[in-house]
């Protein structure tokens, strides 16, 4: 009998500690923008209070560690997951995310990839009760106080490449074009703070993206295509005039980030943070001011 009481006492103490821990990690009302160090690949988490937006999931399940350290332990819901384009270094970790978290909205084009792992992700999203949104230029996705303005791909571009735009399904069409060209470009904003996410777009597409007229002055840019010279061009910097640039990159055989890209950023005097050198890069903003967390 005494043992039983001991166990009950132990259980209650644990409950009390857990409650205190839960209160202690309750997030403040600020935007945290974390470029997760997931090796070669993209995974960027934006949080505001208990609202989360995850942009890409890296190649491996490393992203769930980043979610684990940057979300309160009791919050098991991610409001928006945006997949820029179906290549492994962007979606690879997402099936582990869907396995572990309830995702409200999944934003991705209906461009298909024949790889088995992407098909597994599609069926996982289908079985999870997550709403699917196929983004096109001009769309605004709101979650709490965070807004995602979709800049690319445009409806015309997708229709030209064979997407019938019947809407909100995954893996509906294939294209001979490089999947990078379909990368979702989005502007995340809170108050006066703007961050531009560029997936893996390259020079040709960047000009088309600029032509949409939706690129404007931002504070933060995720450099396209892991810093490849086949990514960033100066026109984009002219248009967006960012103050800080994040390069999501890890060990790779392509030579990313290329020296040309780094030189260009230096020329424009933009502060550069790299996930391969700096680990997780966290920026905090209250909607007016912003600073990089040391």
């Amino acid at each position: 009998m005494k043992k039983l009481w001991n166990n009950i006492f132990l259980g209650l103490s644990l409950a009390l500690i857990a409650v205190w821990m839960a209160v202690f990690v309750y997030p403040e009302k600020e935007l945290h923008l974390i470029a997760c160090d997931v090796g070669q690949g993209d995974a960027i988490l934006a949080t505001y209070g208990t609202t989360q937006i995850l942009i890409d999931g890296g190649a491996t399940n490393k992203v769930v560690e980043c979610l684990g350290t940057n979300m309160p332990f009791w919050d098991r819901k991610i409001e928006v997951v945006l997949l820029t384009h179906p290549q492994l270094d962007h979606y690879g970790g997402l099936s582990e995310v869907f396995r572990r978290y309830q995702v409200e909205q999944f934003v991705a084009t209906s461009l298909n990839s024949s790889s088995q792992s992407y098909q597994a992700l599609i069926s996982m999203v289908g079985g999870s009760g997550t709403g699917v949104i196929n983004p096109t230029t001009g769309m605004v996705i709101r979650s709490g106080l965070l807004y995602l303005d979709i800049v690319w791909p445009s409806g015309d571009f997708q229709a030209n490449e064979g997407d019938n735009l019947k809407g909100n399904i995954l893996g509906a069409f294939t294209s001979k074009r490089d999947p990078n060209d379909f990368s979702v470009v989005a502007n995340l904003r809170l108050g006066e703070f703007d961050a531009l996410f560029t997936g893996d777009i390259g020079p040709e597409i960047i000009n088309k993206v600029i032509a949409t007229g939706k690129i404007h002055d931002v504070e933060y840019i995720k450099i396209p295509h892991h810093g490849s010279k086949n990514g960033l061009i100066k026109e984009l910097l002219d248009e967006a005039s960012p103050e800080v640039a994040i390069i999501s990159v890890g060990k790779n055989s392509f030579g990313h980030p290329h020296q040309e890209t780094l030189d260009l950023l230096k020329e424009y005097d933009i502060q550069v943070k790299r996930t391969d050198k700096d680990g997780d890069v966290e920026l905090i903003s209250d909607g007016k001011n912003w600073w990089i967390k040391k």
Partner: protein
Amino acid sequence: MRYLFRFFLVLLIFVRIITTQPNFSDGDKIRITTKVASEPIKYDTSQRLVFYGLKTYLPNYPEINYGDKVVVEGVVEDGKLVSPILVSLEPSVGKLYKTRLNIIKIYQKSLPEPHASLLAGLTLGSKAGLPTSFWNALKKSGTAHVVVASGMNVTLVASFLMGVLIVLMPRRSAIPLALIGVWLYSLLSGFDAPIVRAAIMGSIVFTAQALGRLQAASKALFFSAAIMLIARPDWISDLGFILSFVATGSLMLFERKIASLIRFVPGIFREGLSTSLAAQIGVAPILYLTFGQFSLLSPIVNALVLWTVAPMTIIGGIGGILGLFSDIIGKYVIFLAYPLTSWFVWVVGIFG
């Protein structure tokens, strides 16, 4: 009579080991049809399975689970099956296998990483989904044994079941029920060598108790080794099998002496320190020979964390089972383990 029996046992083991030697050699192209006998280890882009002692690396998708039926083709080379092709995969329909997967899912839905994997490892010996960096930290700090299937789990299940059953019924009926529970658990947890070892040993000890006969634990240890090698001769080269026996043997030989030597250590840490020191005496040389490393700090780390293992496993077990019926109840029970998993993760993070 007794010697004749022992001689016969040893002979049988030899015969089994020799006759079941795989009859393929390097360069052979082979096709294996089998049931996946233990949980595949998941890496970033591949999953590792072992078929008839051959390490086989297959792509991450389609996902293969413990209990699935597979047909694999490949070329034998140096203990590996190279350029393997998954010809067919038939997911297991067994209730137990599904229950196992469902319980792991409940942990993953309830807690962030690495806490969820820690619970899955503690309760079911599952390493699927364990973040690589955490796994490396566990190995480095000498605490990896906690998240792999080990005899400790079986002991916990057995003593938990006995503790509950003994209140409800006389000892004579409680023992067989507890044994059924232990064997169900060993199937649920992946039927790895260390679990089976503990289940057999436990069965021997319990049965001897029920029959009113005193049995030396060392005899039970050797006898269960014999039974296992007759049933699965390929386990002779299984690291888990070897470590499990060596660690148990060391515990039996040294634990009590060490415990009395370190009486100055505070209560909750003492048992963890004495058991890990005792086990290390036998295990450290093997680990050093196989991995070329072992941690001198390991007994200290173990002393700091081992006291959390029993409550975490029990809370995880109860939470997982309740979670099968109600997500929310399961989740709140599992939250109770969070302070303990946090301590564990924090300590391992410092030393790993």
